[in-house]
Each structure stands twice: as C-alpha cells, then as structure tokens.
C-alpha cells in the first residue's frame, strides 16, 4: 500500500527554485534513502513531507492527509510522521526521559504511567536505559541522536523521516545510530532517510533516490544505483563519494 504520494512538488524560497517538480511514491514498510550533492533539495523535500516547509505547488499526501489542503490538521500528520534532525534538537532543560515523554503527555494526552513505561521501553531499545535521568548536555552526539529517535518513536509514528541523522556525528559514533536505524527498518518501519552514508543506503534501503538540482534524477534498488548508475550525474556524484 502506498502511504506517501508526492506529485509535481515545487518549492521556491523567494527567487530560488529549490524543488522543480518532484514525483515520488513510497509504500508502507519501504525504506527509501535520498542521496545527492548538497544544495540538491534533499532536505527541503523531506521537510515538505511533514509541513516544516510549505509547498509552493504540487501535492503531497501522507497517510491520506493532503498537505496542500489548508483544512488538513498538520499536527495530526506530524504525529504520524516522526522526524529526526541533523542536530538532534533535544530539549536541553528536560531530562532524557522527559524529552521522550513530552509529546505523548501534551499532544497525545497519554496517562503519565503509561507514557513513562513506554519511554523507558524505547530508551532501552536504543540502548540508553541508564541515561534516563541525565540531561542532554551530558550526552555524546550519538547518544543524543538515539534519544531523538526514541522521542520521535514515542508518538507511534507510521513513518519516520531522517534528515541527515549522522552528519553531525564523529565518524566513530555514526555506527551506533545506524544500528538503531537498521533495527527500525527490520521491524518494518516506513522510512525516508536523507543521508551521506552510502554504506547504510546500500545495505538497508529498498530503494535509493538520487537528487540533483531540485529533481529526482535517478532511482532504483541500491544495487542498480551503486553498481550500475545510468545517469551521468549519478555516476559523477558516486565517483566522488564512494
């Protein structure tokens, strides 16, 4: 079943035409990695999917919610599509457990004990059970990003959007975050991952999209994209990063 429909998506920042007609359908349980040079519009594409960026023209449908319809409650869409940011964006004044519990308590109006039990379960799942009572400022980058993943999962999203989740991390701790993401993919989460981790894309993705200058230039299985890219721009990009 297709859960994300993006059709002829255009996004302009003033005179800057960032997305020039992106089309993309993503099925339930599919893991899609978006790669491409910086400035190609990957992050903007992702941020359009939960309304962090408004759409200039075209349409996006997420779980039957039309994002280009002003009557759509964007907060409902965001509860169903969790997001993980490059710079983690943990709430510095809240303990790790409270970071994870905040949205369930305030948005989903969950019962406190249930929210706590769930937060504990999620933190254990990302390997941070012993850091529950710590403040984010005392964590390493990799730990912060794993908390951010647990925080997004606490709302039971049906889709997870990852915006360069490992780009701000030291190379030696990228792996711990990718492991958590791999587990999530294996559990059947629908994931859209903007990434520069070609190894991860190759191993975990069902489909890889290569974006350049505001368009999806080429897409296919990791094998097709990485082993036999057809487009010259894909070939040029991969020869630089691989």
């Amino acid at each position, binding site marked *: 079943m297709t859960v994300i429909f993006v059709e002829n998506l255009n996004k302009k920042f003033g005179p800057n035409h960032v997305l020039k007609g992106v089309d993309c359908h993503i099925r339930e349980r599919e893991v899609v990695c978006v790669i491409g040079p910086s400035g190609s519009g990957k992050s903007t594409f992702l941020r359009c999917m*939960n*309304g*962090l960026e408004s759409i200039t023209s075209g349409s996006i449908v997420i779980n039957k919610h039309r994002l280009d319809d002003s009557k759509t409650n964007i*907060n*409902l869409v*965001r*509860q169903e599509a*969790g*997001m993980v*940011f490059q*710079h983690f*964006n*943990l*709430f*510095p*004044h*809240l*303990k790790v457990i409270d970071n994870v519990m*905040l*949205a369930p308590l*305030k*948005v989903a109006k969950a019962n406190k004990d249930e929210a706590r039990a769930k937060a504990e379960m999620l933190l254990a799942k990302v390997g941070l059970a012993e850091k529950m009572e710590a*403040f*984010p*400022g*005392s964590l390493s980058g990799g730990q912060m990003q794993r908390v*951010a993943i647990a*925080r*997004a999962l606490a*709302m039971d999203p049906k889709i997870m959007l990852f915006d360069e989740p490992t780009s701000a991390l030291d190379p030696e701790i990228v792996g711990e975050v990718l492991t958590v993401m791999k587990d999530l993919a294996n559990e059947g989460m629908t994931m859209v991952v903007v990434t520069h981790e070609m190894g991860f894309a190759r191993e975990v993705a069902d489909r890889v999209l290569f974006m350049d200058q505001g368009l999806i230039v080429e897409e296919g299985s990791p094998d097709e994209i990485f082993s036999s890219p057809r487009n010259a721009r894909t070939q040029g990009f991969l020869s630089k990063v691989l």
Partner: protein
Amino acid sequence: MALYFGDLLPFSSLLLEGLWTALYITLVAMVAGSALGVFLYLGKVGPGKAVSIFCTCYIEAIRNTPLLVQLYLIYFALPALGINLEPIWAAVIGLTLNNAAYTAEIYRAGFESVPHGLREAGKALGMKNAQIVRYIVLLPATRNVFPALTNQLILLFLASSIGSIISLPELTNAIMSVSNTTYRTIEVLAVGGLLYLGVSALLSLASKRAETTLFRWAVGARV
C-alpha cells in the same frame, strides 16, 4: 592632607539610610520594570501592528535618551501639567519606565537566541505553538535572559544615584550632604563608593550562585 574617617561616624546612619533608599527604589523599579518589560516585549513582537510600533518607539526613545533627561522630565516638566510627584515616586517611576525598555530588549534577545531547531522539534512532534512556547522555549529563554537581567539589576542600582539630583535622600545624596557638612570629601566618597561596590559585588555573586543552581541542566548544553 591627612585622611581622617572619624568625622564620618556621626553620619553613618544617614549614609545607611541613603543606601536603604537606593536599594528600595532599585528593587521596586526592577520588579515593576521587568514586569512592564514583559508587556512591552509581547506588544513589540505581537500581531497588533499599531501596538508593535508604539512599543518599538517607546523602547527606542528610552534607550536613546539619557536617564537624567527622563528624570528631569518627570520631576520638573510634569508639574507644568499639574502632576506633582514626591522625589521618591519620581525616581521610582523614572527608573521603572527606563528599566522596562531595557528588560524588553533583554527578553527579545533571550527568546531569539533559543535555537530554532527546538521549535522545529516541537512542531515535528505535533505540538501547538502555545505548547511549544510553554514547554520548550520558555525555560531555555529564561536561562538566556537570567544573566542579563541580574546585570541590569546592578546597573539599575548604580543608576539610582541619579535620584540625588532631584533631592531624593538616597546614597549619593547622603554622600554629598556629609561631604558639605564635614568637608571630608575624599573620605566620604571612598566610603560611599565602597558601599556601592559592596552591594554590587554581593548582587553579582548571588546571581552567579542562583544561575548555577537554577539552571543545572545547562551545563554542556547548547543554548
């Protein structure tokens, strides 16, 4: 010329009363001014265009004119309109109105310096704007505002000396009258200066202490 502090002893209660008056008007102006500053800040960044322009003009007018001139206006110009104020009320009102403009700017800077990513994280979790402000932005903003506010308190305390020119018997006024009576100008200025210094240092120390206990979470945090 030999220094002699003994002549000041009979005037110690006058100096201490002056210090108390200075502290009193400082605290009243700090509480009232920083509360008024909240409304000025909200008015400035709020949706009402006319209110926003008014608040901006007020803040800029206060911040770009001398406090002394503002106090003269209140004490010497208002009587022409039939409003006569006791020196202490003129000083309290003057310092409050002045302080409100500065604290409004402190709040603005404090809220603007909260990383934008925190708001986005709140949005991405489906939170409403009011929830984002209350649960996500407010505390980090308070943390950003705190050192500037305590600094403003000290500046206000020092600025209270300006009350002396409208014959308010605060510390500087007491210093001058003791000086005129005893001719021990250097001695009384030294003592008075040390009183200002001592209180300011205490306030500064207390605010540092308060900062570390109130915002323990901020250690190592990027705010």
